[in-house]
């Protein structure tokens, strides 16, 4: 199979803690892959290790046929990886427009993508002059995803998009992510199994820093035993 991203047996330390102890992730092109697991299993660290924000000490990360482990974060991101972190990390001192403009990698990226972004998130258009610290949680999440779309990214790493959002918002967010998957490959970390199962085509489950099982989402949905064992009651 043709993979856009391959993570092979990475180990990552945060301080003295051995967080990842061998994680493998394979992400096919133009698909949505969900990384599942309990709290503290190492899902977020996996995303950060791919980006080099918490550099892995062992193992390989291959993006589009190129080894990227050991490279600096900004070099990795420049290859075409967009990141939507768990806490959204909206820049509070910047306006919504500046939050989008800062993500430009080439001059004029924002002008080019403006239309696509605002058809996807119509709400953002009327917030454009607002400062980042005046946004609600849902608006922040939309902005964080929109920011990852400004540059030409082939891979989007989205961490917990549904966290802390009202059900109505989750619905429209899922719609947006589904539309996005036509253009970019998406890796999703999601606690909410319902959301993940409706969005993702493939899944990987991480438990205590190790990837334990992966496959097609349609198989997992019917495998109540695995769901119960790895994700708790769901």
């Amino acid at each position: 199979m043709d993979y856009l991203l391959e993570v092979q047996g990475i180990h990552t330390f945060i301080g003295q803690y051995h967080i990842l102890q061998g994680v493998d992730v394979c992400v096919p092109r133009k698909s949505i892959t969900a990384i599942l697991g309990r709290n503290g299993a190492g899902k977020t660290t996996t995303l950060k290790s791919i980006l080099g924000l918490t550099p892995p000490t062992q193992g390989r990360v291959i993006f589009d046929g190129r080894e990227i482990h050991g490279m600096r974060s900004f070099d990795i991101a420049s290859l075409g990886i967009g990141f939507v972190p768990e806490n959204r990390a909206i820049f509070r001192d910047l306006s919504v427009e500046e939050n989008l403009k800062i993500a430009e990698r080439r001059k004029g990226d924002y002008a080019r993508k403006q239309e696509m972004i605002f058809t996807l998130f119509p709400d953002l258009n009327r917030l454009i002059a607002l400062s980042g610290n005046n946004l609600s949680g849902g608006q922040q999440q939309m902005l964080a995803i929109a920011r990852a779309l400004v540059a030409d990214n082939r891979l989007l790493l989205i961490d917990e998009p549904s966290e802390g959002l009202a059900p109505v918002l989750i619905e429209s967010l899922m719609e947006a992510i589904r539309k996005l998957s036509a253009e970019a490959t998406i890796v999703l970390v999601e606690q909410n199994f319902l959301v993940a199962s409706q969005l993702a085509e493939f899944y990987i489950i991480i438990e205590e820093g190790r990837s334990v099982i992966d496959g097609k989402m349609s198989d997992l949905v019917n495998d109540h035993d695995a769901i119960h064992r790895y994700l708790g009651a769901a």
Partner: protein
Amino acid sequence: MKVYFRKNLLFWVTMVVLIFFFILSARGMPTNEWVITLLRGLSVGSVTFLVASGFSLIFGLLDVLNLAHGTLFMIGAYIGWTVYVRPDTFVDLIPLVAFLFSSFLLSGLWIELGKRLPMNRWTRILPWVGILLAAGLLLLVLPRFPVTGWDLQVYSQTPGTYAFMADQGLLVLPAAKSFESSPVLVLGGILMASMLGAFGISLFKRSKVLTAGRLNWRQFAVFIIVLGVGLIIFVANDALTNFLTGINTTWLFLIAILVATLSGVGLGALMESTLIRPLYSRPIYQLMLTLGLSAVGIEVVRAIWGRTEFIMPKPALFSGTGEGCPATSLGAWLQHQCSTFLLFDGRVRVYNEIFIPLVGVLVLVAVWILLKRSRLGMIIRAGVQDRGMVEALGINVRRVFSLVFALGVGLAALGGVLAAPSMGLSNVMGESLFLNALIALAIGGLTSYPGAALGSLLVGLIQQVIIKYGAIGIPIPFTDIIFKPTPPLVPASTVLLMVIVLLILPNGLLGKKE
């Protein structure tokens, strides 16, 4: 609007109280005196602001407490003085500096060369060999490169004497020294040492370089330009010296400001890339390093310029005293270029009390526009909050770090050269000002740019008001006692203001709540 005021109620109440106190203190003086006090406060505040803003930019983005900032302020003043009073020394030094640092611009070439070398036991000591050879060569060559300077041992040739003579308009520059050995050999030796040193230093990082080193043509072009400028100035040394001594001192002063600021920028870039960068993850080491650097800087200044204090003469535009002075209107001032200006029947010193605040406001606005309107400013504001996320967007934050550090040090050096004609030059000028700047930042909010401006203004004003009342005295109500604040109360008052502000607003006036 209403929400804004409710959120910032304490800030506005504090500001109203402070303004009330200043009006109250101004009522105790005649108009001309409080105007002068206000202008002096603005002047001290402007210089403080130049140091404080650079410090807070660096601290906000890099999390580095640059304790050497006061020393860098002082070094800026001394460099500016050298350009202004001794242009011949300055011209002599340009080729030397150009040749010494030119090879460090070729980092791409050195990395590429380093990768061609095999990794074994012998090539591992190569970096040290390179650096030692460079140092040895420099020891041999540098004494043979003549720089017409001053002599700290001979009274008639000390910097203080030259400054005094320049102030009286009697400055005679000493005869230029000439080469005793072949200039080609000396310059070649310096270039060789520079190359060896740059190569040696780049070899240290060899094992860490993962990405392919690129032979960069732009680097070559810059290298050639720097060498060329060095050579041209070397050949045209006398002509340039004559030109600099011949022009109006106002222009020379502008050149001095420019050179001092750029030296600050260069010094900052050098300091960040060599010393600070390896220590980003170790804050305690940074503190020790910058504290040590500050002490080293002071000693270097003492070794070069001596321990005695001396003055920097004011440029021609601000030093006229003859007929038509003090000026009463802008036109008259421009015509006679007076050192003083009559404002509400009080004499205001144009340089100290008008020019310095003007430059302060200019820099405030310029940096504000840079922060608010440019992409670099956007990245800085974002980086202050979350560096990791900025990097995750594909932005090379490290390069922005270097730029901001250089900019911050440049601002301090600009402050130094601006303050020199009004404060004079001394080995300790940096320390007291740095303390002022820190207090100003604590008052205004550590990482807030407008906070740095507001805090500096308040510190400058309160100092000048206390100094003024030291002369007038404050009548204590219901008694016959007239209280005259003593000089030690001047710094104490700023600390008191800081304590009060911090008790009310723990993050400073404009600081962000964490």
